[in-house]
């Protein structure tokens, strides 16, 4: 009797254990499956993102005509990469990754950024040092060391291919958004596309006598949308001054001087890019800013201002010596292929003035603009002669640029689309 009861008891509890055991096993399996699902989903997503970066690295660093060989294996994920170019300078990359049966898709639109989207972009610092009272706004990049003398201020993110170099132990630069190392992208651009655009719907000034002489152009922008201009070829006389609408002079905004120089000033109402090329002449390819050049609508006051100015000099941009000028305001995005912004004879100025730049500066090298001495009362270096470099980045250049302004060769992601919501399918 007691044996039967024992048997019944054992069978009963075995049944109960089996029931609960199976239930707990099912919970455990579902938890594990849930974890595996999230892991696989995440891996598929990361692999798809890796595919994007793989494509960008190959196009930017190896060859702009790189074609993916599909499928590509990233870890244990199978990745398919597809490239299209919806328009010039725009790249669309689609990366589809499959990891353990789960597929995720990432689509990126990348764009060749304009140099104007950097507050400052330099190939090298040379023998020049960023110094006290210099202020750099917007993203700052150099393919060299960032050389600091005293306490220059960098308001935007700083990237450098080599690092930071201080003049001495009295130098304390301020990096408001930090700095980091980043690979070098050379400061170069091809004028041929600009030349085509200038000839087709812009304005080109050149030696019409075909004697290979330098052409000089004076441009004064007016706040009513007009522009006054004069030009001369070689050592000849200046032409009579002509006043016309900017849109009539150059419908696409591009004004090019082939083998010559430009003298620019005024108050721009509209959009223009001025280009001075040298074509081998050592006295050409210079843009001179004799007096302030500003926008008719200041974007600091009206962020919807549609005035944009680009200045592209194949040699350099120069502020000519004028001891009576005082402070100078420059509203423009500046690109100087073989130099930077030069202040001629800066050490001969009787005082220190401000060069207020609203826009961006890109160039081969940083140029000296002022003379500095150490002030033992203030305990820092101060400018005494020439122009302090005070630059404020024009935020509109994050997404817009002056017409036909030079672009970087590299493609930078503009938008990321990861649109799939993958839900686990549990029984």
């Amino acid at each position: 009797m007691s044996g039967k009861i024992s048997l019944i008891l054992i069978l009963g509890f075995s049944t109960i254990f089996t029931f609960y055991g199976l239930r707990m096993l099912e919970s455990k399996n579902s938890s594990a499956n849930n974890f595996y699902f999230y892991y696989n989903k995440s891996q598929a997503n990361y692999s798809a993102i890796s595919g994007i970066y793989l494509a960008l690295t190959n196009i930017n660093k190896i060859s702009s005509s790189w074609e993916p060989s599909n499928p590509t294996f990233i870890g244990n994920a199978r990745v398919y990469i597809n490239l299209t170019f919806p328009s010039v300078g725009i790249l669309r990359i689609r990366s589809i990754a499959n990891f353990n049966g789960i597929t995720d898709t990432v689509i990126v639109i990348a764009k060749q950024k304009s140099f104007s989207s950097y507050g400052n972009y330099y190939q090298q610092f040379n023998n020049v040092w960023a110094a006290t009272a210099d202020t750099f706004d917007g993203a700052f990049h150099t393919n060299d060391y960032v050389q600091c003398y005293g306490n220059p201020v960098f308001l935007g993110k700083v990237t450098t291919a080599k690092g930071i170099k201080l003049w001495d132990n009295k130098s304390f630069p301020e990096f408001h958004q930090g700095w980091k190392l980043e690979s070098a992208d050379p400061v170069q651009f091809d004028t041929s596309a600009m030349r085509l655009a200038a000839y087709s719907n812009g304005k080109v000034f050149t030696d019409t006598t075909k004697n290979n002489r330098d052409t000089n152009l004076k441009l004064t922008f007016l706040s009513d949308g007009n522009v006054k201009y004069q030009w001369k070829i070689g050592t000849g006389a200046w032409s009579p001054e002509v006043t016309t609408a900017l849109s009539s002079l150059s419908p696409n905004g591009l004004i090019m001087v082939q083998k010559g120089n430009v003298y620019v000033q005024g108050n721009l109402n509209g959009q223009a890019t001025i280009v001075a090329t040298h074509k081998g002449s050592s006295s050409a390819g210079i843009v001179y800013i004799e007096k302030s050049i500003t926008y008719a609508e200041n974007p600091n006051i009206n962020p919807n201002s549609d005035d944009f100015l680009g200045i592209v000099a194949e040699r350099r941009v120069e502020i000519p010596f004028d001891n009576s000028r005082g402070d100078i305001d420059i509203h423009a995005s500046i690109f100087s292929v073989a130099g930077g912004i030069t202040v001629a004879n800066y050490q001969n100025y009787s005082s220190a003035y401000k060069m207020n730049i609203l826009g961006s500066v890109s160039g081969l090298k940083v140029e000296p603009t002022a003379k500095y001495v150490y002030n033992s009362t203030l305990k820092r270096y101060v400018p005494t002669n020439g122009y302090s470099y005070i630059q404020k980045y024009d935020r509109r250049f994050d997404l817009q640029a002056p017409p036909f302004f030079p672009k970087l060769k590299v493609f930078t992601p503009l938008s990321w689309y990861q649109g799939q919501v993958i839900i686990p399918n549990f029984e």
Partner: protein
Amino acid sequence: MGFSTLIDIAGSMFIGGIILLNLLNLNNNLATNSFYYSNYKNSQVDLVILASVIERDFNLIGYSANYNAIKNDSTIIYGDSSSIRFLSDFNNDGNFDTVYFYIGNVNELLNTTNPRDRLLYRRINNNSPKIIGSVTEFKLSYFDGLMNEIHSPIIYNSNVNFIRVSLRVESSFPVDDRYSDAIWKRMTVTTKNIVKK
């Protein structure tokens, strides 16, 4: 003889009783743990589904299918520790939509025993809000380019570069006075489409 039999019976009843009580206790524990882990599994599954939705939606902050329309300034209209309103091209048609994530009041879930659970809503433009899950915590933190926290509320054009999202999902009913929970946290879910300043 009779006395020893009585002792045997008493002894076996005593031992049998102890064994029975142990077995009953074991059964009770098994049942409790089974329900608890089942609840825990459900919380995890709910969390994973919710995290998938949050990841997708937050990754699209500032995104537009029309790359020329991508905004220069901030696309986060408003943000605090438990809600956020931002611009995003939700249906991929090139036009920005306003997306609003927020949690409801605890009183909306009076039918559950959990006093902390609330509904998480998502509203697109002026459409009626949709429930996307039930959470006990939906916490948002905002950071600038140097990873310094920006205190909420965040207003339009704040210098937000990164957002940290934290979710906590609990079971609606307790087992043995214990609510099973699952937590999910992500930093920088959203960085790719935000214009960095």
